[in-house]
């Protein structure tokens, strides 16, 4: 494997670790904040408006990181009418241009997301600027998604679906 390709693989592996870290911690934080809100509302008759803003943005973190990770597993929702009839080689030839196209679409979205963010930043009152920082997930999320799809175009899919455990002999009596 040439050195440049090794570097590409290393970047992708690093990106996957980063995405997993952000994805898992965002979901965990979302759960914790939601629980705190439940307790605050039902037991202390109060709520934290700042927490609502954070949870609204956390869902975007989850969406983008989850979408990037699902790209790695080649499990994005698709209309798979044609692919089941193609051989594995044909499928592999077809997938790379499609991944590149998807990366291109995401990069356009990243560009307009940045333009949106800059507008938000410019017009946000100073006491709300902290929430605008959270909205950075829009351009960054689309950029990460685009980068991941681009890296996949070069490396192809490494992820192998774990083989399901063989179906064992099992009867009702085994449940007792």
């Amino acid at each position: 494997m040439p050195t440049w390709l090794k570097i590409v693989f290393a970047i992708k592996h690093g990106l996957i670790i980063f995405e997993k870290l952000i994805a898992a911690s965002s979901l965990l934080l979302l759960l914790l904040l939601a629980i705190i809100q439940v307790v605050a509302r039902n037991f202390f008759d109060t709520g934290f408006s700042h927490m609502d803003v954070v949870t609204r943005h956390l869902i975007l973190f989850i969406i983008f990181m989850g979408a990037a990770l699902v790209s790695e597993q080649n499990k994005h929702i698709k209309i798979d009418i044609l692919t089941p009839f193609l051989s594995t080689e044909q499928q592999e030839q077809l997938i790379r241009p499609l991944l590149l196209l998807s990366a291109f679409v995401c990069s356009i979205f990243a560009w307009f997301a940045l333009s949106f963010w800059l507008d938000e930043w410019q017009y946000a009152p100073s006491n709300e600027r902290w929430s605008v920082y959270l909205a950075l997930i829009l351009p960054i999320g689309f950029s990460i998604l685009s980068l991941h799809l681009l890296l996949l175009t070069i490396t192809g899919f490494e992820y192998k679906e774990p083989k399901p455990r063989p179906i064992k002999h099992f009867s009702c009596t085994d449940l007792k």
Partner: protein
Amino acid sequence: MIIIILALILLAILGTPLFAVMGAGGLVASHSAELDPTVLIIEMYRLASQPNLIAIPLFTLAGMILAAGGGTKRLIKLFNALLGWMPGGLAIVTIVSCSAFTAFTGASGVTIIALGALLLPMLEHANYRDKFCLGLLTTSGSLGLLFPPSMAILLYGIVSGVSIDELFLSGMLPGLLLLVMLSIYSIFSAKKLHIPPHDFSWHRLFSALRGSIWDIMLPILILIGIFGGFVTITEVAALTAIYVLLVEMVIFKKIQLVRDLPQILIDTTTLVGSILIILGVAMGLTNLLIDSQLPMKLLEVVERNIDSQLQFLLLLNLFLLLVGAMMDIFSAIVVVVPLIMPLAIRYNIEPVHLGIIFLANLEIGYMTPPVGINLFIASQRFGQPILKLFRATFPFLMIMLVWLLLISYVPLLTTWWQK
């Protein structure tokens, strides 16, 4: 413009991720409407502020924790003790367990993977025919879509603006009706095959109840939470997720915080991300289509040819069955719902009734080629060709079509709770 639309359809057929196709569609639509594509981003940002959206990852997390823990076995054991003594008992146990599990995992294929491997050998051991077992398990992968806390209902409510509580309430009776219809078929099949039911045992029932008392509390918590009006949908989702996590970690000790939880969190985000990214990029596209008066133009065409509600419902079902056969349920909700809502309102169809008809059609779409995802997952899990599975599901498909006609033409089944 037509060439671009055809190119996008071709890209979708070739297997381009749907979020990219819809994103490209949104960019094209904003360009042709001479609008700044930033509107697409604004729509996505607006989506994040939908209060009920947070319920989707939290309920999915609860489902994933249940699947990773021992929830599946406990569920089968409980329903087997409760219903296994009836004629066709094990088949009924399969139907009920799978629908309970699917309600949590959102018909993402987890049911066939997690429960199929347990139930197939059990059904075979009980002397059910191979074809019946495969058909039953493939069908069961999407049952329960109409029960709380189904992700499909949550998404439908978010996209259409219809109250999620009302959708859950409306889906209960049609969902139960389907379970009863499939159970009756199973009883007849078991009698035809001379499969003896096992004896009812109080001891077995108490043992199963004792073992799954914490699981039994879960639907009670959800139903009281949603319909009792004590907490919001999002709060129920958070409580469900933390409850399931504590039960699996502290009581059953099936999940360890460091060893298992990170992977469960990652699996949840990948499932949620794959669905909600489509919603995110497609919101802008569908709003642009609405702004371009597409639903009104569609309405004009339909009004010219369709006079009655009866005809409209028939056409709607045919159209949705076609959509269900071609598209995944979640992308279909995002794209199709905003377009057909004005049409349904014009023909005096209640929004909740439309929601249940829509989801019922898409539920059937899970087992119809070419994109019947249950067929693909079952084929992979049971090592059987798709055509064989389709033949096996055919009797179940026919029953579901009869069920669809019933819920379409008897609105009372969905709107019984309205005054």
